[in-house]
Each structure stands twice: as C-alpha cells, then as structure tokens.
C-alpha cells in the first residue's frame, strides 16, 4: 500500500524531474570518476604485478662495461638475491629501405636454449630462435606493427659497426618495454625505436662479449633490502666498470607506468569530491526552494498530525532517491567507462592481458559518500521544517526583511532607479547566498582559466622545447665519445649547414644522503642550435666552474647554489668529481644538468671529446645527409626533431595528458550548471515580484532587468575572483600534470583569461536567455493569486 506521502514523493520527483536528473547526473559523474579511476588503479597495479610475475621481471638491473660470466656466481651469493641472469645488450641501428634515417634499436640476448631465468618475453607471433641459427631474431611487436614487419621478413641491422641481415622468426612483448624510448629521447615512439632479441652466442660475438655480460639482472627474496643488494652488486662489478645498479622503481618503463598510476590515484582523490560538492550545492538550493514553496503543505501535514520527523523524512527521501539513483547510475557508468579505458590502456601499455576489476568497497564508498553529501546538504533545510509550526506555516510568509539591507548613500539613492535598487538590495541582503553564487561562478571561472592556462602551458612547452630551445634539425648520437675531429667530418657532409657538438655523460649525483642517477649535458660556450634556457626563456649562464641543476634534480638532491656535490662518473675512467652547483634553473623539458663542454672535458681530463652533435640541415639535401650518416659506423643513431615533436605531442595527448581535455569539459559543465541553477533559483524566488512588475505595466525587458541585473552583477563580481583563483588552481593542476619527463608551466596571458571570462559570460548569457524565456511566459494571474 503506497502511503499518501510516498505518492506525493513520486509526484514531486516527477514535477522536478529535469532538475533531479541534472543533479543526479552530477552525482553520477562524480561516482563514475571514483569507480572508474579506482578500478583503473586497481587494474593497472594488478595487471602490472601479474605481468611482471609471469615473465619474471628482475628487481635489480646492474649494467656494467664487460664482466666475465663467473661473476654471476658472486652476484648470486649476495644475501637476499633469489636469482641472477646475465645478458648482453647493445645499441644497434636498423636500416629499413623505405626510411631515410637509420632507426635506433636495442639488441638484447636470450639464452641459446631454454627461457631466461629473468626478464622472459611474451611471444605473440612466430617462434623462438633455434639453437645454432645465429641469424634469427625476435622483434618487439610494437615496432613490427608500426613498420608492418612480420615473421619471415628480413631485417638489416648494424651492430657495433658491422652490418648484418637477420631473419625475423617471431614477435614478442616484454614487461621491460611498456614504454620504449631510444637513449637520449624523451617520448616513446613505436615506429622509431625497436628491441630485438638475439641468441646469446650470436650477440656476444657481435659485441665482443664472449664469456662475458654487460648487464646483470637480479631478483630479490621477499624482504630483502634493495639498497644493500645494489651496493653489493656495485662493489662486485666495480672493477668491470659498473654503471650503477638500480632497482625496478627506476627502470624507465616501470617509472612511466607508475607515474600514470600515481596520476590516476591523485585524480581519484581530487576529482570526485568536486562533483559531489557541486551536487550538494545544487541539492541544497533545490530542496530549500521546494520547502519554502511548500510551507503551507508542510503546515497542513503537521496540522493533520504528521510529526516533524515524518515530514522531514519525506523530504529527506526525495534527496536520497536522487543521491542513490545518481550513485547507482554512476557505478554502472563507472564500470562501463572503466572497461573501455582498460582496453585503451591495454593497447597503450601493450599488456598481453588485462582484467578490469573494481574493489566492491569502492561501490559502497561511492554510495555512502553520495548519500552523506546529499544528506549534509539537506540537513540545513530539514531543520527549518522541524522549526515550522502549523499555524505559522498556514499564514503567508512575512515579506523578506530589508530593514538591514545595504544602506545606499543618499546621493547614490537619488541617481538609481527603483529596479536597480531592487537588484542591489537583493544581492546584498543575503551576503551568504551571494557569496555562494559568487563562489560557484568564480569556481567555474577558476576551472576554465586554470585549465586554459595549463593547456597553453602544454603548447608552450612544446613550442619552446622544439623551436626556441632546440633550433637544430637533427641530433646525431655517437656510439662512444669521439674527438672533435668527427665533428669536422660531419660538417663536411654536403647539406649540413651547421654542427654543434655536445657531450653527455652518465653519472650518479650525490649530495649528503641524497643521490640521483642521470647525466650531464656538456654544451658549447655560445650555443646556437641547442640552448639551455629557463622558464622565462632567458639563457641559463653556464659557468666554467660548476654545474647547473634543473629544479627537479636540485629538489631530489636538496642542493642549492654554492653547495658542492659529488659526481660519480659512469663511463671511461670513472672518476669521482667534486663540483660546485653554479645555479638551479627552471627548465621546461626533461630534468637536465648542464655544464660547459670544455669544463666537463677538463674535469674528466679528456679534452676535445664529444658524444654527439646537433645539426642544421639544408632542406633540399636532407635525404643525402641521412644516407651519408646512415653509413657512418660511429653513429649510434640520428633523431629528427620533427619526429621527436610528433611523438611528444602524441604522448601528451594519451594517458594522463588526455585528462586535460576531460577537465576542460568538466569545467564548462560545472560553470554552466552553477550559473544556470543560480539564475533558475533566483527566478523561482522572485516569480511573484516579477509578475507584479508585469501587471503594473513593466515590459518584458524591463522586468527581466530586475532578475538578469542580479545575475550580471554576481557574474561580474565573480570574474576577477575566479581569475585570481584560477591562477592558483593552474599552479596546482600543472604540478599534477608535470612529470620527470616534462614540466608544465601554466601560461597567463590576457587572451587566456579573456577566453575563460568569455566562457563564463557565455554561460551566463545562455542561462539568462533560458530564464528570460520563463519571465516572458509568466502566468500573471496564477502568480499573483498565490500567497507565495
């Protein structure tokens, strides 16, 4: 048996269905985000774990120049080490007939028979190499697909200066290469970097590594200390040229997926509350309006003998139906969206499998916080139901009290016409309400301004990096450091206009307890092709004495200008240097550490050495240049700036970077939702006043002024506040988007703020127009008949 109150509930819901759906949708979006993001975090973490586990990914990577195989036994004896695998790795160049530039690749050895103890591969197509067949290789699936190579095709590879032709027998994926970049490149690009797996004896022969390895892989026993093991491994490998053992957490590909997961986690905490807060705000105004207009009914119900609790429960139920409905829809939508996103992530990270799984606790959390938020929003309103006595409720409400409203100065009073006074007095009569509306619209403005600043920050980072900072056309990397003579050779290649050498050296920076494994970029004294610039595009001065740290590295090392840091050089004679920090610079891209090339060579006691060069090319002769460079044995690779830029853009548009578009959309929706609801509620509250004005003889336009003037005023107050909030918000958002790989600095221009302001004004205009239609349609007779 449906009670009359429940029947009223159903009818009330039907009556306010569009508002109820709108609010429910906002709640649903919040819960969707919560369920989807928590689900994705869970899924990515679980899938990564399972993937690592299944293919026995190592916990420690220990690169070394050349260590004899028997050293592996010593490594295995380190306390806490469960398994050890030695392998040969080398840089290689792939020559595809249809591509001008040589493509960079990493060659990795697999045991001649059986699977490796650690870092196994997932064979997707074809077969493994056969023992004794030295010309067989397995190719990374991502590259094969991008270049349309299949098992059976042959591949020309230059290894250690020697050119050989291999036959592709299989394609594979590996948990080591979710994200595969060539050394020295920032963004991954499947088509420009390959991994090839070669039989151990064949690869050892190619790189002079017979009876030796140049990378040891270690797995740890549960509970083993990472630092102790890496230290012990470094000690054992020291005399063979250890390049510094590091844990899985520092492995590039793993770090990339970890950052993605961290980004999702941060969004999962930050984004849903935003939606729920907006939903609470909307629920509050809708319910308070409803209770106000149903005073008489509430009085009547109480007069019949319904208790305050029963009547309050009735309104609470209405709120709960919306909240629970929204939450359930959000859960369903969240699962669906999560499944879709999981598939995207699967192809993005090249997981062999993925299972989208949400912890059921997330459902309860979503449901409970929706109910909690909605209840909190309505408690204030329910209090007024409790306080209402039947007799008072049945009388028309007293006119709102304006005794203490804004006191306008006498002179001002005389200038203003009555409708303007109405606007001003109403806006300032309830400062709390005005504050809420101003805050709401300002938040919308802040979101828009913040997002636009960050989005142009993305564009600026790209522009600056690829056209201001780097003015070269190509970057040539040598297989090992060479004398400056090689630069002269490069400069003589027809079509090369300018050559600018650089040297990059792998090192470990140490400062007190802190350390960071990276590299030093040695740049020429007055660089023209590749310049070290700070965020305000000023050249970073490179001193003859001392290094310049980028901000993220200075933070990791806790180092400031004037501090001395220890540099553990990881190539050549591997000296230990003490160098002062000359400056800390805000850089845009990567986390570089700069030094003057001559100073670097001086410290290393290796004069005139370079490890690569930036080239400026004659457009007409590009292909000849590429061909010439393709045939230089000392060249490990060449990357074209245009290609790098494209892959960088692609990377920023996928994964976390794509969130910026979603956030911009959300900003728009929230801004409109708040502005429209403010306008709608103001209209509902003043319907009778507006009808009275129309009856007295005010035209539609004159009447609309009274309402829209208020909306305009509130919007105008909100704009500068929102602009200020947007500044701080953009700092927070860009912090969130920035990674080790790129730093996003929000861009504040009058244009960006103008666009954000226009978006808010547009939302106000559309809201105003929608409400104006209601004003034009007011039923004068019935509006005047009602008591309220």
């Amino acid at each position, binding site marked *: 048996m449906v009670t009359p109150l429940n029947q009223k509930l159903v009818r009330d819901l039907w009556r306010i269905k569009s508002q109820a759906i709108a609010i429910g949708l906002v709640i649903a979006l919040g819960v969707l985000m919560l369920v989807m993001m928590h689900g994705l975090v869970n899924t990515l973490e679980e899938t990564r774990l399972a993937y690592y586990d299944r293919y026995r990914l190592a916990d420690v990577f220990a690169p070394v120049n050349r260590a004899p195989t028997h050293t592996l036994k010593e490594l295995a004896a380190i306390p806490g080490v469960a398994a050890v695998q030695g392998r040969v790795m080398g840089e290689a160049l792939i020559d595809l007939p249809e591509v001008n530039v040589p493509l960079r690749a990493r060659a990795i050895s697999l045991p001649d028979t059986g699977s490796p103890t650690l870092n196994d591969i997932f064979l997707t197509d074809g077969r493994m190499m056969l023992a004794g067949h030295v010309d067989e290789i397995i190719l990374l699936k991502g590259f094969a697909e991008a270049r349309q190579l299949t098992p059976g095709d042959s591949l020309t590879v230059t290894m250690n200066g020697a050119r050989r032709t291999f036959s592709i027998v299989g394609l594979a994926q590996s948990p080591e290469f979710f994200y595969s970049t060539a050394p020295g490149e920032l963004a991954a690009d499947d088509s420009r970097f390959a991994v090839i797996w070669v039989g151990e004896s064949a690869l050892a022969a190619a790189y002079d590594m017979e009876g030796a390895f140049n990378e040891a892989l270690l797995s740890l026993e549960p509970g083993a200390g990472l630092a102790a093991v890496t230290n012990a491994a470094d000690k054992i490998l020291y005399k063979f040229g250890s390049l510094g053992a590091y844990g899985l957490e520092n492995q590039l590909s793993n770090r990339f997926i970890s950052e993605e997961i961290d980004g999702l986690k941060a969004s999962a905490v930050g984004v849903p509350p935003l939606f729920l807060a907006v939903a609470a705000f909307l629920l509050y105004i809708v319910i308070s309006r409803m209770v106000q207009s149903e005073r008489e009914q509430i009085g009547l119900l109480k007069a019949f003998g319904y208790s305050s609790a029963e009547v309050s429960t009735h309104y609470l139920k209405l709120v709960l139906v919306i909240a629970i409905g929204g939450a359930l829809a959000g859960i369903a939508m969240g699962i669906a969206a999560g499944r879709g996103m999981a598939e995207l992530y699967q192809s993005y990270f090249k997981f062999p499998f993925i299972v989208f799984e949400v912890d059921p606790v997330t459902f309860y959390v979503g449901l409970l916080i929706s109910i909690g938020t909605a209840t909190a929003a309505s408690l204030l309103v329910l209090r007024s139901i409790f306080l209402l006595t039947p007799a008072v409720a049945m009388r028309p409400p007293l006119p709102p*009290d304006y005794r203490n409203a804004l006191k306008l100065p006498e002179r001002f009073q005389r200038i203003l016409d009555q409708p303007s006074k109405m606007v001003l007095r109403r806006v300032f009569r309830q400062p709390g309400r005005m504050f809420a509306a101003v805050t709401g619209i300002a938040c919308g403005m802040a979101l828009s301004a913040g997002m636009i600043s960050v989005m142009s920050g993305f564009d600026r980072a790209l522009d600056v990096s690829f056209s201001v900072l780097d003015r070269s056309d190509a970057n040539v990397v040598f297989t090992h450091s060479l004398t400056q003579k090689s630069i002269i050779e490069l400069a003589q290649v027809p079509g090369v206009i300018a050559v600018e050498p650089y040297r990059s050296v792998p090192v470990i920076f140490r400062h007190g307890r802190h350390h960071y494994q990276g590299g030093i970029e040695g740049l020429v004294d007055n660089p023209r092709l590749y310049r070290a610039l700070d965020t305000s595009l000023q050249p970073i001065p490179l001193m003859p004495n001392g290094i310049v740290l980028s901000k993220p590295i200075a933070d990791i090392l806790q180092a400031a200008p004037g501090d001395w840091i220890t540099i553990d050089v990881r190539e050549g004679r591997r000296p230990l240097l003490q160098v002062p920090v000359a400056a800390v610079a805000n850089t845009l891209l990567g986390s570089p550490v700069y030094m003057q090339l001559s100073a670097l060579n001086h410290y290393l006691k290796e004069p005139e050495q370079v490890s690569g060069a930036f080239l400026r090319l004659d457009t007409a002769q590009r292909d000849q240049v590429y061909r010439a460079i393709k045939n230089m044995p000392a060249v490990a690779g060449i990357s074209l700036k245009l290609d790098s830029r494209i892959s960088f853009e692609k990377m920023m548009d996928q994964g976390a970077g794509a969130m910026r578009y979603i956030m911009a959309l959300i900003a728009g929706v929230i801004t409109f939702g708040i502005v429209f609801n403010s306008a709608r509620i103001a209209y509902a509250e003043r319907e009778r006043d507006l009808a009275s004005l129309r009856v*007295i003889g005010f035209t539609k336009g004159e009447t609309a002024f009274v309402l829209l003037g208020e909306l305009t005023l509130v919007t105008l107050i909100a704009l500068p506040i929102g602009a200020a909030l947007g500044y701080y918000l953009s700092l927070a958002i860009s912090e969130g988007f920035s990674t080790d790989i790129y730093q996003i600095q929000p861009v504040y221009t009058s244009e960006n703020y103008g666009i954000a302001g226009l978006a808010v004004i547009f939302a106000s205009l559309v809201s105003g127009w929608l409400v104006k239609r209601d004003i034009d349609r007011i039923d004068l007779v019935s509006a005047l008949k009602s008591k309220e």
Partner: protein
Amino acid sequence: MNGKLPNGDDIAAFRTRNLSKVYGEGAATVHALRGVSLEIPKGEIVVLLGPSGSGKSTLLNILGGLDHASSGEAYFQHQSLTEMTNAELTQYRRAHVGFVFQFYNLMPSLTAVENVELVREIADQPMRPEEALALVGLDKRLHHFPSQMSGGEQQRVAIARAIAKQPTVLFCDEPTGALDSTTGRAVLKVLQNVNETLGATILIVTHAAATAKMADRVIHFADGDIREVIVNTAKLSPEEIEW
C-alpha cells in the same frame, strides 16, 4: 484593433459583448465566462459579487489586460481589448490601469515611497509619491520596508502605488480579503476617496457582500454569467457599513 463600437457611445469605461472564457479541454473543460455582456460607466465604483468560480475574477483579469478572452468582445473606451497583442496589453496596463490585490504584491526590497516611485518611472503623468501616500494616509511611513508594516498599511501602499500613475481604472481583487474589519474599512475609505478625488473608475471583486453598500453599481455573478445588476441609489460611506 482600436475599432470603435458600432453603436459608438463614449460614456462607458468598459463594455463587453458575449465575452467567454474557457479553460482546459475535453472532460476538464471549465467555462469561466459564458457570454457576458455588460457596460460599466466611467467614474463609478462597481462591486462584483458572487461565489468562488462564478467568473468575477476572470472578468476582472480580462478587463485588466492580464488574460485573453476565448471569444466575444471587450472594449476599454474605444479600444478593443480582445484584439490587443501582449505588448499592447502591457502598454494598456502601463497607461491606464492600477491594480490592488489581496496579498498586496509590494516589492519587499523597496520602501513605501520607493514602491510608489517604481510606478512613477513608467507613467506619463504621475503624482508625487508623497502625495499618493498622503492620499492613503501613510505620509508618516514613507521610508519603511513592507516587512515593517502591518497588512493594512501594506495594502494602502499598494493602493498608493496603483493610483500614483493617475489611472483611468483601478482594479481591486479582494482588497480587504486579508485584513480585519477596521483596517478593511479604512482601505475601502481610501478607495472611495480616490474615486472622488481622481474620478477613476473602480472595479472591486469581493466575497464581502457588505462592500456592495458603498458601490454605485453591484454586479452579481453565478456560473460564469451575470445574474443581476443593481444600481445603488443609496450609497453608504465605508464608515457606515456594518460587517
């Protein structure tokens, strides 16, 4: 529009011929007015009496330019109200009509004098707000907000607001409905005063039969039509009316 009545007679403030108003469709159809024909001379106080739903408010709304008739004709002097567009009805209300409602309908954010000013700003030949408020006996409460005034005072501000534009006609829908008898009588006195000083035609819709005693003409409504029109030859002043 603005068509002349065929048998042109300039004395009447309003005339209607076969005026009908139908709400809803099908089974829910309500005939609020069933072909009402009447004539209201200028400068009279006319009281419309009748039970709820008899059509008196509907007639008032159509003559006041708030609602459209379904069929028939209604004229204000020479102008055909039934042929006017919404914008023209707004101009008609603006230029000629004052309204007084049961629930006052004052702007809560404006003081007494500002509520009256509101009308002055859109009227052609308004009187000074102080003057209008003096006419209703409120010259001492000029700067009070509605929330600071009693129901009777608020109703008198509403009347001052209605007369400040020097309207040709004043429509009052249950003007004393929310007031006690003493205050109600004071409000009626103000209306009579307005009728005498400004010469405005006043139409009062009410349930209170006693009000009829101060009218020049009493029109009884039942079932959407006029049942009886009584011309009152022995008008009483509001003070003399027994409630």
